[in-house]
């Protein structure tokens, strides 16, 4: 048995060095989980007091984008398999979760007993919906991953793009979940707390995977499949696993999306959305979870921010009359031009993509993560000590 196929866990310390920052096997992880939940709840309470419903909505959208980008990074960046159909997994999760809540949400109140207050029953139903959404998406991820494991680079990209389109077509024809009219009537269970908690969970789990032996196997698959195979790594199994895990989180994001917008339609999960997520991952740095998160935090709310800017420009120019051509008026003109032609956003994205590949193919963060090791390296150390593992 090669050392790479051993499961992580407590063992002779000499045989493996636990990467810095990983909490596997440590009782501390339950504390971290508790902290995540409490921080999410606190942030929600705080934000609800300060922000209006629209601004909370934008934060939720951003959080969902973070989950999508981070989960896609597992496949595209860490395993090196270029998937262009991630929105398809999101769709599966969204529809599965929504179908459960809308069609079978009620029985949970009965299950838990008639005395259960409505919020508890609704939330329990939501937890179940999330689980079902994630697992359904993961199942589809396995189905997609199996043939995908045998396809190479460019072909895989087209095949995954096709997968996204197939999901969309199947959903358009699925009358039971609304089909081409859309699926409405979904209760708005997604609050900022849920989004924050699940985003944090996604990042933590992905980080743990990355820092574990499984993560190293995935990186080996990315770097050189043949060498990895020679080392005894079951490449096909790891590829399918990567698809499955990444699809699971995409499914969670989809369920969050469905319960936030309360109305879903196959057009919400098309090729356009897949390409948006891929752009986020590429610009943030394929292989860096921090990079994906950072890019999603910027690019997620960007369309809304631009809308606000364009609206401001329109109001300002209406107030001052026909714009002159000096200083701030140039900014106003730019804002007006943007309002009239939103395709500028995509022109900029595509130029960034091409520019990135030509000048800095590793993206914003490259392969690096913000980690305790990196922070430790930045601080002066008393003795020599081991070099912290920044990856």
């Amino acid at each position: 048995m090669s050392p790479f196929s051993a499961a992580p866990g407590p063992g002779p310390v000499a045989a493996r060095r636990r990467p810095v920052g990983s909490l596997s096997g440590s009782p501390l992880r339950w504390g971290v989980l508790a902290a995540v939940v409490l921080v999410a709840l606190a942030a929600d309470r705080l934000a609800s007091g300060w922000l209006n419903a629209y601004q909370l909505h934008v934060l939720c959208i951003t959080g969902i984008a973070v989950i999508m980008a981070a989960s896609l990074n597992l496949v595209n960046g860490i395993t090196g398999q270029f998937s262009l159909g991630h929105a398809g997994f999101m769709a599966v999760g969204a529809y599965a979760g929504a179908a459960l809540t809308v069609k079978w949400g009620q029985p949970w109140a009965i299950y838990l007993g008639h005395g259960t207050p409505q919020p508890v029953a609704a939330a329990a139903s939501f937890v179940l919906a999330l689980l079902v959404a994630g697992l359904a998406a993961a199942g589809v991820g396995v189905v997609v991953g199996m043939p995908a494991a045998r396809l190479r680079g460019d072909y895989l990209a087209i095949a995954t793009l096709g997968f996204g389109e197939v999901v969309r077509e199947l959903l358009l024809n699925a009358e039971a979940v609304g089909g081409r009219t859309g699926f409405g009537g979904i209760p708005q269970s997604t609050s900022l707390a849920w989004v924050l908690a699940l985003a944090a969970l996604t990042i933590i789990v992905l980080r743990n995977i990355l820092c574990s032996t499984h993560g190293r196997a995935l990186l080996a698959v990315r770097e050189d499949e043949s060498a990895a195979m020679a080392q005894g790594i079951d490449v096909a199994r790891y590829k399918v696993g990567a698809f499955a895990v990444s699809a699971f989180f995409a499914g969670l994001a989809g369920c969050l999306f469905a319960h936030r917008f309360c109305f879903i339609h196959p057009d919400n999960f098309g090729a356009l959305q897949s390409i948006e997520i891929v752009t986020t991952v590429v610009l943030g740095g394929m292989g860096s979870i921090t990079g994906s998160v950072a890019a999603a935090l910027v690019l997620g709310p960007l369309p809304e921010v631009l809308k606000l800017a364009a609206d401001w420009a329109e109001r300002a120019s209406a107030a001052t009359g026909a714009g002159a051509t000096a200083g701030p008026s140039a900014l106003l003109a730019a804002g007006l031009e943007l309002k009239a032609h939103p395709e500028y956003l995509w022109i900029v994205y595509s130029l960034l993509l091409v520019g990135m590949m030509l000048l800095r193919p590793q993206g914003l963060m490259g392969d690096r993560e913000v980690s305790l090791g990196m922070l430790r390296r930045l601080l002066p150390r008393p003795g020599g000590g081991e070099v912290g593992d920044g990856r």
Partner: protein
Amino acid sequence: MSGPTRYRIALVALLLTALVAVGGCPPSAAPKEPVSPAVPPPPSKTKATSGPEESTGSGLSGLATAQFAPNVPDIKVGAYLALSGPQATFGQSTRKAIELAADEINAAGGIGSKQITLIVKDDRSRKEDAASCVRMLIDQDKVDAILGEVASSNSLAAAPLCQEAGVPMITPSSTNPRVTQVGDCIFRVCFIDDFQGEVMARFVRNTLQAQKAAILTDLANDYSVGLGKRFREVFTELGGQIVAGDTSYAEGDKDFSGPLTKIAAADPDVLFVPGYYTDVALVAKQARTHGLRATICGGDGYDSSKLVELAGEAANGLYFSDHCWKGDPSPTVRNFYQAYQAKHGAEPDALAALGYDAMYVLAHAFARAGSTDKAAVRDALAGTREFAGVTGTFSIDAQRNAKKAAVVLTIKDGAQALAETIPAD
């Protein structure tokens, strides 16, 4: 069970309960609009309703002089439309007309001397953006009423938000019956697909004397599929026969040779294609090439000045149901036509006419309500009777739809011509 495991389970249970108890509560940031009792209209405005329905107001009459609550600075009306993306032509048309209407009203003194502030948002033809735009309009811009959208799916995406916040929403052109079923704050000023499908089925059967018809729908578009279903129902009820099964294409498809050859083999008298003009133009062009002699018919999706450019000669002889006809000699229509043409240098289409009417209907509802109180405006909208608009004279019925006449238009020598007018029932 070992010690630590028990504690872990307890901790997880505690966390879940905390999350459920707190996170599961509805967010406190968006309190529902309190439903206040409707403000009774000022006594001078009540009319005894006996005998035939009297109009609750049309055009500019009575707007500037309406009694209005003094403490509001202006009336904020929001609109969410597709100003870019694949449905941009629909959204732009509607926006221009809404703006025209708002400008006219403001120039004539506003509503009760309050000006209308129009806030238009672009949803980029995307449904999730439609919801975000409406969120923005309701919570950030704090509008008093909302106009939008054209495509029914987009309206369906945003209507629940308006309903939940109690903000009245009028869709100018969404024809799917489900839109107004979302709640009592959602209205429309156009007819619904059930009516439109029936109109065309009757026209095709009775006026065109068609015995056999084939249907080609856009499977990606609920408007198309809904119209097709209704047409099939009524046509078969009237004794017609549907041939060539249930062929469909997907939005954006360019090549219809497969379905058209199949349909041509069944030799129908009429081919019903209830899609958007971009696809229909290609169907019409290709139909001739495949030997189809059938007359091609459809719905209001055909209404566009571009149809003739895109279909060329094949556009002649198409029939389609629509909301209004620009050749109508009535002064309301003529004035609108001239004003739109003068301001935008292009001919208005039916979507523009509907947008224009929607704005005026809303304005009159504000005038009758006498304030920006959303519940009052909602009630006033529901009470709209005999509104004389560009798209006909209509009332808002109990399902919050507009009962109005339809016209059947045709293309003759590259221009729209009237074939028939169908009254409201």
